[in-house]
């Protein structure tokens, strides 16, 4: 048994067969052959190695001719590696003695060499592990040939383990069969995290290198609550997780019954409980759980993974689908919130040293006004179809907010001139996620119709900690007293001015914080669709004065860890079934 610690990005427990993806998306199943088939497997191996060698020789000759012998030498070296006598003996041994299929034996033998590189610290030399993977792929391509298993062609449930998943890979996955994700790299904002959360399956990212330890078909447990990945679990561990998964299923069934009751506290205070979504199909997840609206509709998916900028119609269709499905319930559409490095259709002038402090989000929009206008036109057109609100992310200064509003007003004039219907009184709000905005929140509330606190970035910018940095997860705390203070300042300013305030960061999706947030005065929460029933359950189990007492106590404490364990205790007191 082997345990890996990563960053939990989508909750739940998944137990199942591993599907190990390398850069080319190969899937190597653990496969054994019968004794009679051993000779045939050895022939297949011989042919595949021959074919791979011929391919390398061709590459060597072409490259030598075109770029010179220095470059050709790499392929010559690969060719040598491929003919390693001992390697070949090992592969053949695995086929003869263990009755492995040729592809599984190749994969196994190469993984062993790749593992040898893990102790190499010299970065250049450590990179050579990729040469080994290349060679492996060269042979596997010929072995698998047409039998190569496609990701889009799964037939049984799997847990996907990969170094990283690209948007196109995740797009090609057959959703019906993927039960969980693990990636070696990435953080909470990674594409894998977003997709896993949207699919509502457990996911752990940033585990560090481990793919060499695992083969396709191995039994794996993903613990999406604690960010654990367990390879080859022992019986006791397996039994414990099976029990946990079973309990989660029965809890989900019980929570399902909450769908048609309002999120209302035991003393009758109505809480507006909304869903955060990324993809239009998630609106269904919200509706089936009785969401009061969409509190955060992220629009980044429109820009990711496509080479050209999405046109107005692409925006409009995505928005219209959600707005129509929600009827008269509010849909808050947030404008583009990406870094310049993530938007393929933007020409970049230079690499940024600190992308999180650089050209991203509203700053990027304000520098690419035609692109921004396209999105705003689509949002405004969608506003004619239902209860649409528009929200600007990462506002750090009043001038940014004013400039964004000016562009919005300008687009409105344009639409009006062309007689295109839209809601002229569309509520305009901003994300509160930069400490500077909180410092000036008294001014900001004068100029917006609503606020939404984005805790993910607010924590990151307040504590100067990169939440995607695996070594810094200990510092990244929603319960840090400084963060709580900023939330309080925002809520109080909003209350004085009578501006509605929502909280839509990941903090809102965890039942641990619900009593605290209600006690601080929030009456709107926007959460991951999967969290709606749990959060509703907490709301219905508590009274506002209890929450206020919890908040007072939490605010009097001086460190994140104490506050968190105190909140956990209180949750256990009032809603014990959600406390663990």
């Amino acid at each position, binding site marked *: 048994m082997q345990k890996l610690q990563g960053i939990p990005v989508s909750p739940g427990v998944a137990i199942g067969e591993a599907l190990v993806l390398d850069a080319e998306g190969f899937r190597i199943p653990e496969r054994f052959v019968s004794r009679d088939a051993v000779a045939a497997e050895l022939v297949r191996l011989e042919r595949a190695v021959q074919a791979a060698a011929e391919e390398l020789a061709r590459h060597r000759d072409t490259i030598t001719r075109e770029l010179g012998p220095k470059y050709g030498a790499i392929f010559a*070296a690969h060719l*040598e*590696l491929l003919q390693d006598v*001992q390697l070949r003996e090992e592969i053949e041994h695995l086929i003869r003695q263990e009755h492995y299929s040729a592809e599984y034996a190749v994969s196994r033998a190469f993984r062993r060499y790749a593992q*040898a*590189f893990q102790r190499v610290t*010299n970065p*250049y*030399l450590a990179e*050579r592990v990729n040469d080994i993977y290349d060679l492996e792929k060269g042979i596997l391509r010929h072995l698998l040939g047409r039998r190569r298993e496609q990701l889009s062609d799964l037939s049984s449930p799997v847990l996907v383990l990969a170094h990283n998943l690209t948007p196109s890979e995740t797009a090609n996955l057959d959703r019906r069969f993927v039960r969980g994700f693990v990636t070696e790299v990435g953080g909470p904002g990674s594409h894998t995290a977003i997709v896993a959360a949207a699919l509502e399956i457990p996911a752990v990212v940033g585990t560090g290198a481990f793919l060499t330890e695992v083969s396709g078909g191995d039994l794996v447990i993903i613990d999406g609550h604690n960010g654990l990945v367990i390879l080859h679990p022992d019986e006791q561990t397996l039994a414990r997780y099976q029990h946990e998964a079973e309990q989660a299923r029965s809890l989900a069934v019980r929570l399902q019954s909450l769908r048609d009751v309002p999120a209302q506290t035991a003393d009758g205070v109505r809480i507006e409980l909304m869903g955060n979504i990324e993809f239009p199909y998630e609106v269904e997840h919200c509706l089936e759980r009785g969401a009061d609206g969409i509190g955060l509709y992220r629009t980044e998916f429109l820009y990711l993974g496509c080479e050209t900028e999405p046109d107005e119609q692409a925006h409009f269709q995505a928005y219209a689908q959600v707005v129509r499905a929600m009827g008269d319930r509010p849909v808050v559409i947030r404008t583009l919130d990406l870094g310049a490095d993530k938007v393929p259709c933007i020409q970049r002038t230079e690499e940024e040293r600190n992308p999180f402090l650089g050209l991203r989000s509203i700053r990027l929009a304000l520098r690419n006004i035609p692109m921004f206008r396209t999105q705003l036109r689509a949002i405004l057109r969608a506003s004619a179809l239902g209860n649409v609100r528009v929200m600007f992310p990462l506002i750090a200064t009043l001038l940014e907010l004013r400039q964004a509003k000016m562009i919005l007003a300008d687009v409105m004039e344009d639409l009006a001139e062309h007689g295109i219907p839209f809601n002229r009184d569309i509520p305009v709000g901003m994300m509160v996620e930069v400490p500077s905005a909180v410092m000036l929140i008294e001014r900001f509330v004068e100029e917006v119709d609503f606020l939404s606190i984005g805790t993910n970035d607010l924590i990151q910018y307040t504590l100067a900690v990169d939440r995607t940095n695996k070594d810094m997860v200990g510092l990244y705390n929603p319960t840090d007293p400084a963060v709580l203070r900023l939330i309080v300042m925002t809520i109080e300013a909003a209350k004085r001015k009578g501006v509605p305030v929502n909280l839509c960061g990941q903090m809102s999706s965890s039942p641990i914080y619900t009593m605290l947030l209600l006690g601080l005065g929030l009456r709107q929460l926007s959460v991951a669709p999967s969290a709606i029933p749990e959060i509703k359950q907490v709301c219905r189990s508590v009274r506002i004065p209890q929450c206020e007492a919890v908040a007072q106590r939490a605010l009097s404490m001086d460190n994140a860890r104490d506050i968190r364990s105190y909140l956990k205790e209180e949750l256990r007191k009032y809603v014990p079934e959600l406390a663990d």
Partner: protein
Amino acid sequence: MQEQGNQQLRVSRQVRIRNPEGMHLRAVNLVIQLARRFQSSITVSNHNLRADAKTTPMQLLALGAQPGDELSIEAIGPDALKAVEAIVRLIENRFEELPPEG
């Protein structure tokens, strides 16, 4: 270190990796090409790992020889001394290029 007389010499020598990339892919290839010019059997060891210098490039690469590592080159055979000297020189010259043949 030399043992025995004419025919079966056993020679071994330590050499430190000096080039910043360590014993990389092309370097492995050069070691192999050079080793094959000799009749003696030749091995390269790093820490507790050992690889045949003529037939197992993968093992050579997997020695993970980084700058600062001290490798042990050992040869057994009639031209063991020449073989070890040639390979030590290749490593000391930072795997720049093979010496002319002969």
